[in-house]
């Protein structure tokens, strides 16, 4: 509320300034200008100044945001492919900030400089092929770079892992409003499942006659990943669409009823290492739901723990398999 009053105060100041600019005459504030196009030159100058002031204020506001919240953005990517995403983000970000700053300076300076002056004769400048081709070609060239790097990364990220390699296969199962993880077990394969088999504690609808399913391990609340080992995720949803979002790993994929989707990444840092990197002893990796899925959408989450392979194996062994 303190902030609100501060803003209200600024607003009132602003209005009073305008009031005085109009000679302190309240009625004057409602009058239009006598001659429409022949605006008061002073008034035009003021508007030009205001644009410059706005430009500076905008810049200060951005700096304030960076200073205050820049440190609360997502930390360094915790997955192997995430580093590529981050570096592309950096390139794109630099281009964006550069163009943003340059065009805005141009805009505000032009607006300030060419504010109405009755002695100026505006230029009659209708077109210039060279200039226009220049600013067609320039963005095109920048785009070639961005698109090439982007597509190269996209294709490598989206290529599924080979199931026969030494990987971890996990199914993430979404329903209103929680997550379940199912590990493939020793055979490296997930058992069949079907919505018509959902009953009581078998809420994943796993086929109890499928031998492959016997060693599957089902966990809730939190799931663990071994560091530096590729993880293949398969996603299913029970009722409506959900989205498995693991921001620290630069990973996201929707969970769609009737469709199995997939995503894979290799965790790079354990939870402990990430706590040191972020200097936050309470840091935890997290899985959130990022597709509107109903009333309690905002609370649908699961904790992710990344640890050494030995710890991971111990933890996995401590969980019961489906058959048990």
């Amino acid at each position, binding site marked *: 509320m303190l*902030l*609100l009053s501060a803003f209200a105060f600024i*607003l009132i100041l*602003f209005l009073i300034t*305008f009031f005085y600019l109009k000679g302190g005459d309240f009625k004057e*504030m409602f*009058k*239009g200008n006598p001659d*429409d*196009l022949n*605006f008061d030159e002073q008034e*035009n100058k003021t508007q030009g100044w205001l*644009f410059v002031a706005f430009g500076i204020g905008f810049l200060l*506001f951005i700096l304030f*945001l960076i200073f*205050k*919240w*820049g440190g609360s953005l*997502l930390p360094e990517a915790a997955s192997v492919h995430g580093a*590529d995403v981050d570096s592309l983000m950096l390139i*794109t970000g630099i281009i964006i900030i550069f163009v*943003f700053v340059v*065009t*805005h300076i141009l805009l505000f300076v*032009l*607006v300030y400089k*060419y*504010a*109405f002056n009755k002695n100026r*004769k*505006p*230029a*009659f*400048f*209708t*077109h210039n092929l060279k200039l226009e081709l220049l600013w*067609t070609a320039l*963005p095109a060239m920048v*785009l070639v770079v*961005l*698109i090439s790097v*982007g597509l190269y*990364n*996209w294709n490598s990220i*989206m*290529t599924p892992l080979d199931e026969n390699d030494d990987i971890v296969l996990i199914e993430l199962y979404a329903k*209103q409003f929680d997550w379940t993880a199912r590990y493939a077990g020793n055979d490296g394969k997930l058992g069949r499942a*079907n919505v018509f088999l959902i009953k009581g504690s078998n809420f994943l609808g796993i086929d109890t006659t499928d031998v492959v399913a016997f060693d599957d391990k089902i966990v809730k609340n939190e799931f663990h990943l071994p560091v530096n080992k590729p993880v293949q995720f398969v996603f299913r949803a*029970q009722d409506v669409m959900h989205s498995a979002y693991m921001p*620290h790993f630069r990973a*996201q994929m929707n969970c769609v*009823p*009737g*469709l199995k989707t997939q995503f894979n990444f290799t965790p790079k840092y354990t939870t402990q290492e990430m706590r040191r990197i972020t200097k936050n002893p*309470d840091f935890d990796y997290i899985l*959130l739901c990022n597709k509107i*899925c*109903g009333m309690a*959408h*905002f609370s649908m989450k699961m904790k992710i723990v990344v640890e050494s392979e030995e710890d991971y194996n111990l933890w996995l062994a401590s969980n019961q398999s489906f058959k048990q």
Partner: protein
Amino acid sequence: MDITHSEHKHHESFISKYLFSRDHKMIAKQFMITGFTMGFIGIIMSVLFRLQLGWPGEKFLINDLLLGSWANGGVIAPDKYLALVTMHGTIMVFFMLTAGLSGTFSNLLIPLQIGARDMASGFINMLSYWIFFVSCIVMLVSLGVEGGAASSGWTIYPPLSALPEAIPGSGLGMTLWLVSMALFITSSLIGSLNYIVTILNLRTKGMTFTRLPLTIWSFLVTAILGVLSFPVLLSAVLLLVFDRSFGTSFYLSDIYIGGQALERFGGSPILFEHLFWFLGHPEVYIVLLPSLGITSEIVSTMSRKPIFGYKFMIGSILAIGGLSFIVWGHHMFVTGMNPFLGAVFTITTLLIAIPSAIKVFNYLTTLWRGNIIFSPAMLFSIGLISTFITGGLTGLILGDATLDINVHDTYFVVGHFHIVMGLSAVFGTFAGVYHWFPKMFGKMMNNTWGQIHFWITIVTAYGVFFPMHFLGLAGVPRRYYTNSSFPMFDDFVNLNEIISIFAIIAFIGQFIFIFNFLYSIFKGRKASQNPWSSNTLEWTTPVEHIHGNWPGEIPEVHRWPYDYNKPGYEEFIPQNVPLKKGEVESV
């Protein structure tokens, strides 16, 4: 067909003049008033859910007053929060910025600027408005039904929107949403057909395509986009109605909900997403292009200088329109769609940066060595150039599949599209209202209050939407009732408060506009025939509206609309002034 002034003065009843008018100028005003009223309701909704986001769980008296059972004890219920978000999006995108913007300015300006007596079909035009009006009523009624209004986001993805068991809003509220949209699409469709036919066939003598004002070019492309894309949404809506009410499975498969497995097989929600975004993306440009057209006109007039690169401007409008049909997949990079398609859509999406860049640089060059008059319309146009740059640039991140993975469906997206399409379109709308108010009501709006309105709006609008990029880069998902379940977002509590405060001031600031608008209609200074010394044909019509627009012959057009300060000639030369001896056409 010559309608002389005296013939016009036959008696008109209130009903035929103000309600079931077939005059495009009156229909434009009807669209404007209805669209703005809907927009006002949409803004109120955003303020209410911003209260919840800024101060989660706190009680507000205004919630009790306005929301009643949606906010028991003054706190919005979680599912009703989603209903507010959904209805805010729907109302703003469709009712305010599609019908309110296109409906108003296409109707007002197409006949006036191309030199036509009226729309090709006045009756269809009237029908278009009244179907739109009914669809507004149905949408508003849906706010009051049992279970609440539709709550699955304005994109209404099934199965959430298909199954009442999934969320209460997917009951009767959703049915009414679908009915309302079907009506809306019908209205938009016949309206757009009318615009296209009028522009193609009723241009006055000499009004060739390279002499059309850029406003008309943008309205033409907008209407074509609407005609080609809205029917696809209609089919999506109808299939959803079938799934909801008649037991089909177009979008449903393998679903277990409400304690039982549904006997629905083979459908796919992804199909809905494809159909929805096939409209949804062109829709972005349906909202944006008219604003860009309006801005082009105002920037040129108020800089007293021809628009730079007229033909490149037309080319970029056409390019944006064409590309908008092959980029819809960038909304679906992480839906499980084939990654190959993701790659294709990345290429097509990023290409849109080229025509957008052309437009921005051409605007800047138009300002260069101009003589800028800061009417409120010009201020909003400059604001639009700024928001178009700011919002457009972040599109480079969202359009790139690799980068989209991590910011998809976060506040980064909310910030991006509110700036590039929301603010730009709203600024274009305001610019249009300030600029053509004298044409609509024969009165002038107050400049000082217009300037105050602009400065409050641009400062608070950036204050609301710019910080959202930071939230998005921190991974905060959109459509969350509160972020309190995730300690990692605790740092942003203050930022959310600041955003909400800006939103409240932005809302209050709009009352300046409403006041100025209403005051000027009744008490404003009388407008002269051509208050902005503009070249386009609408300023050759009399200030008092008459049927048929021109009392005598329709003027003939001899030149493009941007002859401002042509060396050796008058300060401005309206389009209907013949070329002088030895004068060369400028383009």
